[in-house]
């Protein structure tokens, strides 16, 4: 099953254009949507999760027209929003059970199994009788995952899931996701490059409502080989460097600044560095797109 997004645009009533003619083709498996804050990730995710209407465009999930058959989508959708709350006075097990009914798992015994499995998977079994009001951020997030996983969704939308998790929680969570990716379309939006590089077989970089690049992470990294250069400088020297070089990222390391630049040739004073996905991301953001066989922009022009 693939998810086909074509020509999606959305402008908010305050004038912010959140999505500009987005076209993507998302196959089964884990798909990363990488972009900075405010890039339009959440808008896209909410549209996919049937909570928002685009101004233009079409979305097709297999046989389902996502924009017009919302009920159908919801039957097979798992959604973990970037932000959500819980009823503070409800117990975890009880609320998950409630959701299970709402998702259509109506036989009592099936529901009991599903709820128990999910609570164990998300490591919430021991606290299932506790009130959600007392949950930590990570526990809440895991509860959200449990809700999203109810009923083995064919389409899983996960919006910035690891933002508030500690490293251990994050690993546990990513494992859960990758298991699910074996049988469904899982879209993971994030601004954390590592999430994508660790999990996703395909990815897209989105910025200011546009898809800048759609690629497989490994291939994209490969394409950058030999074009990323590194130099460690004092902070004060940064402004000078910026004039002469195309800096894609700066990073602090032990009080000094590590500068990555993009260049086809070796710039003076820089050492070569093997690129990683982060460099792909920042290069794309800085406008250095690798030569591609068929980017979304081209398709749009056709």
């Amino acid at each position, binding site marked *: 099953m693939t998810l086909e997004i074509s020509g999606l645009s959305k402008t908010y009533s305050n004038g912010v254009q959140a999505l500009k003619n987005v076209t993507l083709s998302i196959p089964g498996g884990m798909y990363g949507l990488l972009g900075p804050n405010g890039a339009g990730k959440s808008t896209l995710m909410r549209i996919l999760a049937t909570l928002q209407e685009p101004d233009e465009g079409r979305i097709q999930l297999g046989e389902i027209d996502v924009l017009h058959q919302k009920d159908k989508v919801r039957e097979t959708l798992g959604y973990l929003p970037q932000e*959500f709350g819980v*009823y503070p*006075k409800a117990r975890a097990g009880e609320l998950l059970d*409630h*959701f299970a009914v*709402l998702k259509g798992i109506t036989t009592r015994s099936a529901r009991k199994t599903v709820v128990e499995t999910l609570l164990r998977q998300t490591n919430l079994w021991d606290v299932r009788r506790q009130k959600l009001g007392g949950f930590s951020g990570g526990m809440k997030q895991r509860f959200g995952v449990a809700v999203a996983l109810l009923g083995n969704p064919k389409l899983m939308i996960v919006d910035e899931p690891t933002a508030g998790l500690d490293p251990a929680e994050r690993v546990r969570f990513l494992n859960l996701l990758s298991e699910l990716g074996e049988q469904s379309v899982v879209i993971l939006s994030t601004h954390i490059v590592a999430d994508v590089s660790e999990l996703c077989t395909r990815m897209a970089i989105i910025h200011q409502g546009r898809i800048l690049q759609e690629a497989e992470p490994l291939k994209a990294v490969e394409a950058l080989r030999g074009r990323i250069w590194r130099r460690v400088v004092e902070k004060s020297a940064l402004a000078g460097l910026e004039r002469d070089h195309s800096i894609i990222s*700066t990073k602090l390391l032990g009080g000094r600044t590590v500068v990555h630049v993009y260049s086809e040739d070796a710039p003076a004073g820089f050492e070569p560095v093997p690129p990683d996905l982060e460099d792909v991301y920042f290069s794309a953001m800085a406008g250095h797109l690798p030569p591609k066989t068929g980017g979304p922009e081209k398709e749009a022009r056709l």
Partner: protein
Amino acid sequence: MKFWEIFRFEFGYQVRRPWIWLIVAVLIVLDFLMTRDGSVSEVLYSEFYLNSPFGVAKTTVFGSLVWLVTAAAVAGDAAARDVATGLYPLLYTAPIRKRDYLGGRFVAAFVLNALLLLAVQAGILLGVYLPGVDPELIGPFRPAAFLGAYAIISLPNAFTGTAVQFWLASRSGRPMAAYFGSFLLVFMGFFVASFVLFRRGLGTLLDPIGIRFVVEDMAHLWTPIEKNRRVMQLEGILLTNRVLWLGIALVVVGLTYLSFRFAHRTGGSWWSRFRVRSQKASSPIPPAGSGATAPPALSARPVSRASGFSLHARQTLAIARKSFRAIATSWAGLAMLALIPLLTVVMILDQTESNGVPLVPTTARVVALLTGSMADEQSRWVVIPFLLVFFAGELVWRERDAGLGEITDAMPGTEWPPFLGKLAGLGLVLALFLALQAISGMMAQTIRGYHDYEIGLYLKTLFGLQFTDFFLFGVLGLAVHVIVDHKYLGHLVAVLAFVFIALASLFGVEHNLLIYGAGPGWSYTEIRGFGSSIEPWLWFRLYWAAWAVLLAVGAVLFRTRGPEKNPGLRLRIARRRLTGPTLRTAGVAVTLILALGGFIFYNTNLLNEYLTPADLKERAAGYERRYGRYADQPQPALTAARLNIEIYPERQAVIIRGSYRLVNRSRTAIDSIHLTTAPGVETGTLQFDRAATCVLADEKLHHRIYALRNPLRPGDSLRLGFRVHAGPHGFRENGADGPVQANGTNFTNALLPGIGYESSRELLTPADRRTYELTSRPLIASLYDLEARKRRGEGTTLEVVIGTEKDQVAVAPGALRRTWRQASAGSGERRHFHYATHHPIGGVWEFFSAGYAVHDMVWTPATRADSATTGAGQKRVAIRIFHHPKHTAHLERMARSIRACFDYYSREFGPYGYNFLSVVERPGNGTGMHAEAGMITHGEGFTAWNPEQGPGSHDHPFAIVAHEMGHQWPVPAATVEGAPVMSESLAWYLGMKLVEYAKGPDALRLLRDYLRQPYPYPAIRRGEPLLRALDPYLSYRRGPFALYALSQYIGDERVNRALRQLREKHQPKNAPLATTLDLYAELKTETPDSLRYLLHDWFETNTFWELETAGAGARQTPAGTWEVTLEVQARKMEYDSAGVETTVPMNEWVEVGVFADGKTGDPAGPLYLRKHRIRSGRQTIRVKVPRRPDQAGIDPHHLLIDLKPDNNRKALIIRP
């Protein structure tokens, strides 16, 4: 299945919340108290069992109201919890249908609310059946009473309430918006439905809660027997009301369904989105920088930052501004700042008119409409405290609702700026609201063509007085929300605080020192100004302001900062915060509370006697128990009194020296004299002109007994001298005005000693008498009680010298003999007046002093032959009209009416009894008049009647004067059943005749149209017939209508002659007092046998007619005349004392009329008007008229009482 699951989960979730059980407790306790409380039943002036259908209905309505304002969170939470908690993205993406989701939530909320309202019935049942109730008050248990009230009042209210609350909450995504829904419903019931404009019927219809139906329609229109027996049925206007509101609720439910979408909440209303767009449209969005560019370095230089007081002041101002804006731009703010002021204009226009007759909208009248006491739970302004509670909650929770709580909590500064800032914001909203109200008042005045705005008075009353009361409550609301620190509970507690303030006596708390924000009210009239009402008002408000400061300290101490809610910890933090300025503020507040409270207590309880209503009843009971045995002991009659009254307006004091001449008219010697003294004044030693010793002086119950050494033999007289001093001692708990005021003094002889036991001091209502274990007594003696017809006393001649300060005029009953000025030691120049009556006057003497202007005139009997015969013994009459110098518009009309009355009444009913008539304006905004012998008094409001000029408009003040003048030709009547008929019915009959005599038949028709309107006396089918009538509808409406109808059947000469003879028979000193039976006998002698049935129908039974013209046609005959054919339907029915209707056969004379011009009336009279024999059922009447007719009908002038008068006449269909 999913519907069921959503319902189940919602129900289960809410039913486990503690606050829902608190609401249950509150409903049970309040309704328990309400059931036990007697005051409401007294207000509604009828006795009923605690568990009578009416008693249950009234408490059910009250419970509904409490539920509405406390339990809105049930529907709000069900509708908006998902959005408020942020769970909705998980839920909205689940495969559920809108109707399952909304339906499950709505039904859960409705079922919860319906169950909550069962607590009301539980409260009533406990109130009735828990021990502590007099078993006599409990009637037979009737499940139908409880089930009916629950099904007819509670359930529809639950549905309507839930629908509106659910709609608003789901629309806004905020549970608290549900309270705004409650507010809208309360607003409908208390504000909109109270317009007279809508009359009773429409008001009852528009009230979503049912309070108008129960408190007005049922309370006033149902007979006591009906109240106890009749189970409320879903019929008539109640059915229409319930259907209407259920319909509205269904529409609202539909709207909720249609406007709901499983969609992302972008936040903000269409309005805020619109505003954002218009702001941003001009500025392009800056492109987001790429991660690589270096940001400008943070400046290391310190920015100058305020701290201490300046920081706090600026924070307070900033928060005040934000808070004000937040409220003013919310929907509820819009309701308060736009909807209410707009409707206020309508309300003022509505209230400055009485049945189509306009009143001058003086500023005094308008501000009285714009203000209301917090303690008046039925005032239309109760909507404001509810809004204040709502706003307070919104402000307290604003940051936390926005998710900013922890950020703002971590800001520098103490807890004071947030509290004070929000309070200031609330105050600003209130101030703006009151300013808009003032503008509304002035707009209404302008619309009525009145331009004397008196802005100063608006400022004083609205901003000085009303603002203070609202603001003090605002402090309470805010502090409660802060301290309770739970949205729904805070709301519940704040609303309960308001219920406590408004209904403190329900909780057994009476003293104003114990009721937050309470105190004596203020009054303003054009004559008195604020009088002495401001000073006690101010002391109490200062005292409460000190409490408000303490509340603020409490709020500051207990305000949570951060998520910690543990009470013990909050207490420790509070203790830590209680330092420095906060501690000093608390100290000052406590000191002020003690000092002001002590001062007030000294005034109210030590300088003055403080008596609760229960104390007063206890005294009345004690008086009866101890001295009731002397009720039948012969006492001398007071035949003459001389009074020397010195009024000192500046000091608000009066000294009265007087002497009574007492004559033994009994057949036995009298050996002891019983005297009652007046409470609240100092009555000095009494001196007799013969040897007498005081054997008992009960200063608590105000009774004295003097033993005469030599008994007073029959026919002998004695002289009794006394001295009474009245003056203020500080102020009283209720701030009650003393008798003497700086301008506008008004008191009666109630200040003077009275002779004998006064049965009027006894407790009256059966409930009170039972409580104090007194034997039951009838409200009034039976019509057939011969003893009551005996004369007691023969009236008193009065001679008064009354002195006042030099700029005022003092008035007493009697003709003015002379007036003089004299300088007296210590009090400057004073002015004295000497009044005397030649003939005895009645038992009530009124005295006045104010800066009056006097309009003098003299009525001289006409020397025409007819009056010379009838007016034998009639002397000229000196008429003096005492009025406020500014109130002159009414004088000319009043003078005309008075002259016409003297002309007509003395010709028709015999000579006037005195050689003087005083018309005195007393302070007060009432529009009515009152008559005593030789004196007519009226409130300032009377001078505001402003009837439109010209034909077709009713001159109401003229008619009122005619009515009051009618009282000056009284029939001496016994105080028995039917007594109001003998005074009020006769006076209105005279008034009608006078209007016809002075202004013609059209004016009379307008007066009768006015009297037929259902306000203020709706037609009742009360049990007792006119002969034994006590009810105002019967005496002010049915009685005069009966006499008028009779005059149309047998002629006015005969009715007038009957009245004249009645007067002549009962006027002599030794004649017995008249009753309705005597009136009935006189009328009977004047009525031919063939019409006696009319007397029976009008007086002996409660008969109504239903007359209808079903069809009416006309055809021209070949001769050129017109033949009119009427299809009429007639029915006659009697109502017994239980209100049960019996149809009785009808075969009697009824007028049939044909008119040439139905709209404007016929100047030449009707084409045809004759009485036809009409029987029950349908019948055809054919008459011939000379000219082309336009309208025809049966009983066209409404002589018979027909509750549907509109269908008597019909436009004719002209057939070829």
